């Protein structure tokens, strides 16, 4: 189908974009990569009266280092993240996640900030943002505010962003030396929305888990941290029993939907298996200090 009519504004600055959002509120929607929004318009599931195109605001497209943190501008394309050598060295799990996002043509246009602001529960980047405790920097009429990822994702396709705000930058804390990672996504075909995702990072100390983080996607109304599973592993050696227990705890923390791609029970089972595999990958990649 074809999209409904709307007024189009190509913003040249963040101030201009915020100005439109401020005066038009819910009537206006930000157009970034458009890879999630445009399908909704084509299906006529969304009818924004005004689209504010931010693609010309080049200052929003960057990958930089800020006080040791990794700073990524909201307009940074998935493809840029996928192919960035600096991200591969500074945050390898983000590169791995980027490779799984949809298909090449989608990754050329889709943006990091757009994916996070869209907050699809089966998307890859919210899982990573939650896993690594990213900070979301948001600009609004009153200035900038920062939110930790866990406060940013509220519900299905719903974030803490107000109608007059723009997510401008995401900061990921510095990757500690010796940390290993695992990223496992289950989907019917490469590029499909995930049936389940489990992402894990670990650091080991004297053969035992020191830092453990486990995050899941596709199994709740938002990405979820498997906190109980994380607690079970801290200070434990990485034996099969521990991984089994972690997998089970993660599966119990999931609240999966039931749809044509899989039942809730299937997704819970997927989480259990993917958790063990992601942890195994992370342990293998971790190096003892």
């Amino acid at each position, binding site marked *: 189908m074809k999209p409904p*009519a709307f*007024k189009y504004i190509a913003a040249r600055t963040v101030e201009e974009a915020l100005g439109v959002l401020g005066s038009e509120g819910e009537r206006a929607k930000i157009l970034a990569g458009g890879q999630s929004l*445009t*399908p909704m318009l*084509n299906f006529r599931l969304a009818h924004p009266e005004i689209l504010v195109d931010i693609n010309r605001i080049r200052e929003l497209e960057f990958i930089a280092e800020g006080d040791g943190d990794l700073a990524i501008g909201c307009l940074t394309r998935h493809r840029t993240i996928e192919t960035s050598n600096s991200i591969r060295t500074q945050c390898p799990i983000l590169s791995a996640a980027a490779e799984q996002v949809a298909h090449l*043509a989608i990754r050329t246009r889709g943006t990091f900030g757009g994916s996070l602001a869209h907050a699809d529960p089966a998307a890859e980047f919210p899982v990573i943002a939650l896993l690594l405790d990213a900070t979301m920097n948001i600009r609004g009429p009153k200035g900038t505010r920062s939110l930790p990822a866990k406060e940013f994702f509220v519900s299905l396709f719903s974030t803490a962003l107000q109608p007059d705000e723009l997510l401008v930058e995401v900061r990921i804390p510095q990757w500690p030396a010796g940390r290993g990672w695992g990223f496992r996504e289950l989907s019917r075909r*490469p590029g499909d929305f995930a049936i389940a995702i489990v992402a894990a990072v670990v650091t080991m100390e004297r053969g035992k888990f020191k830092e453990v983080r486990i995050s899941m996607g596709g199994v709740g109304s938002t990405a979820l941290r498997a906190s109980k599973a994380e607690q079970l592993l801290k200070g434990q050696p990485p034996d099969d029993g521990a991984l089994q227990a972690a997998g089970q705890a993660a599966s119990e923390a999931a609240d999966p939907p039931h749809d044509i791609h899989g039942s809730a029970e299937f997704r819970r089972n997927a989480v259990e298996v993917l958790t063990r595999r992601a942890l195994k990958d992370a342990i293998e990649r971790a190096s003892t200090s």
Partner: protein
Amino acid sequence: MSDKHTIKVKVNGITYERDVESRLLLGDFLRENLNLTGTHFGCEHGVCGACTVLLNGQSIRSCLMFAVQADGREITTVEGLGDPEHMHPLQQSFWDNHGLQCGFCTPGMLMTAFDLVRNYALETDEDIRLGLSGNICRCTGYQNIVTAVREALKVLREKPMA
């Protein structure tokens, strides 16, 4: 409520100045306004790949971009890849290796393959399949498409093009 904008877009090397409604999709602009009907619409939501064109040399879905957004930009469609008398090695290889039947997915396959061969290391058939995974074909079962890309790669590695 719908507004019109004047845009200047370079398509296959030629600059066009046109007035378009905001909601006009890039793919419709190419097909209806410029008569470049090589680009096809299959799903109109980004999953089938039939509408794939190049924006500044990189593959995008023309069903997920508005023509207004292409103002000042360069688009390449399958018509810009080559013509029957001077086929691009990819087109020649699809011909030689029977990489199409009805031809509906083919322009999308070619534009995606073009992006892949220029920007990604394709060492195995698996790499080719993964790279083309965003393009759906209902006729061929994909094998000859993969062969076509693999054989074209051999030609391109011997004689790289701009």
